[in-house]
């Protein structure tokens, strides 16, 4: 039996001390090579990380860091009481599972061997589905979707028409993100109001930016008219950016006035679009989520928001470490990497 919310809060406060400081991050970024990076990382709460032989070192590092992230998430989940635990499971595990499902769908879409698909997945126990291997071995995308019946992703079947219409996978990928948003929003109903609004905002901003980026992408598809006609069917979940705005993005001749006219934070997040720096949009989204997570702690430091903050900050930290490690392995000048990091150095 879980000891309750106060225990979760105290536990998360103590776990927050495990997060890396800006100076830790700076030292890691200045490690010079991947061996130095791993040596420095071993002196942090991450401990020893051994890269697998015969595997691309950056992939192996990402997998190892994902293991560490999952370990930390599980610690929080173990301490979470009752329905809050259920919410946190959806919030974290479903989020990671959606990434895995997208990778399985992509693999089946192009006919990749199941072993390659499995190697690309986040190494986690399935959350809403029974077995990833079974999905990876399905004959095609339609079969993968049919094998998802009876899981939280059952509604994906409704997007199959769009898959056939556009002969592309993006409607399914978008629907998966939307399913995650709806599920988190539904589960968040059990949370205290402050935590509920923080959780919805954390995921909502992400969904909105995903929708805007999808809309930008869809400006170039051949059946743009069909996209506009079926906008409600394609974008099943929205937060603060509604269908009208999405429609305007798809139809607009020039994006500049549209981006500038968006409300905050979307105007700031999408601003790099005007300089053709797409990667910076994601960096800014992550920075905004980090700010939200930190703000969440400020307003609700002795509530559920601490757990949400801890989980989000861990995920962002893991992403930054993967980026630094990749940059070191590839011999990329560190200033090219650090400008996209979430963590302030």
């Amino acid at each position, binding site marked *: 039996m879980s000891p309750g919310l106060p225990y979760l809060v105290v536990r998360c406060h103590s776990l927050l001390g495990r997060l890396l400081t800006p100076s830790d991050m700076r030292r890691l970024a200045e490690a010079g090579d991947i061996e130095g990076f791993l040596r420095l990382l071993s002196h942090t709460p991450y401990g020893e990380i051994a890269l697998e032989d015969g595997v*691309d070192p*950056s*992939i192996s590092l*990402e*997998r190892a860091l994902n293991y560490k992230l999952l370990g930390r998430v599980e610690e929080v989940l173990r301490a979470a009481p009752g329905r809050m635990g259920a919410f946190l499971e959806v919030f974290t595990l479903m989020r990671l599972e959606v*990434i895995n499902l*997208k*990778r399985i769908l*992509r*693999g089946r*879409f*192009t006919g*990749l061997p199941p072993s*390659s698909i499995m190697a*690309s997945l986040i190494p986690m126990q399935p959350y809403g589905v029974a077995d990833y291997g079974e999905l990876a071995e399905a004959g095609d995308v339609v079969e993968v979707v049919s094998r998802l019946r009876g899981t939280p992703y059952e509604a994906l079947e409704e997007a199959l028409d769009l898959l056939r219409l*556009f002969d*592309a*996978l*993006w409607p399914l990928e978008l629907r998966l993100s939307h399913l995650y948003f709806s599920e988190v929003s539904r589960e968040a109903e059990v949370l205290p109001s402050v935590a509920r609004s923080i959780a919805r905002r954390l995921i909502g901003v992400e969904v909105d930016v995903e929708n805007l*980026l999808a809309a*930008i*992408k*869809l400006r*170039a*598809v*051949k059946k743009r008219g069909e996209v506009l006609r079926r906008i409600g069917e394609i974008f099943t979940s929205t937060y603060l950016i509604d269908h009208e705005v999405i429609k305007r993005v798809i139809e607009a001749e020039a994006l500049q006035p549209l981006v500038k006219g968006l409300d905050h934070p979307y105007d700031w997040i999408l601003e790099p679009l005007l300089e*053709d*720096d*797409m*990667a*910076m*949009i*994601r*960096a800014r989204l992550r920075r905004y989520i980090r700010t939200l997570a930190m703000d969440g702690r400020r307003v609700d430091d002795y509530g559920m928001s601490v757990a949400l903050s801890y989980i989000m900050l861990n995920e962002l930290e893991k*992403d930054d470490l*993967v*980026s630094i490690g*990749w*940059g070191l392995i*590839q011999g*990329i000048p560190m200033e*090219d*990497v650090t400008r*996209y*990091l979430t963590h302030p150095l």
Partner: protein
Amino acid sequence: MSLSGVRPTKGFLMELKRRIRFIERGCEFLKLKRDHLAKELSASIEVLKGRRRLLLAELREAYRALTAAYIALGPTEVKSQARSVRRGLKVDIIPRSVMGVLYPYVRRCEKPSIEGELDVTLRRVAEKMMEVIDDVIRLAEFEARIERIADELGKTNRKVNALENIVIPQHKRIIKFIEEKLDEESLDDLVRIKLIGGALARRRE
């Protein structure tokens, strides 16, 4: 061609003279070809230098975008998305010719289909890479063309040198040898005729 096997006959001399005229004409053509190839090569090298500089700048930009995409999405996600592209790049290689020099011409038959499939970050990289790949193909084609022209220039030069310094002088030497031999023979014949004519005149007396 050594002088030992030479038949010092008028027929052979005429044949040799016909042959040397043909060789000299061929040599003139080869010199023309050599000059053309040399001109083409030096012009192409200038163009190549410019194209390479442009391509390097484009590549730098594409790699910067790719680096940013890897950082934004993570290596596993980039690989997963890149594999979701169903149609790859397909090219046909067709032979083309410039002054009889064959070089490969690359025709792009199928573009990778990235429409809607990739994340916008990666899509931008893919678009940049597609532009660069087109330029890489054109540059590779141009480099192959220059290489072939340089090869052909070398061969033509060797042929011209061989004709000018070996084949033509040798033929001229043989012609001279045959002409001298024929002159000698005709002189012998003249002397012989004169002697026979003298002997016949004496017998008639």
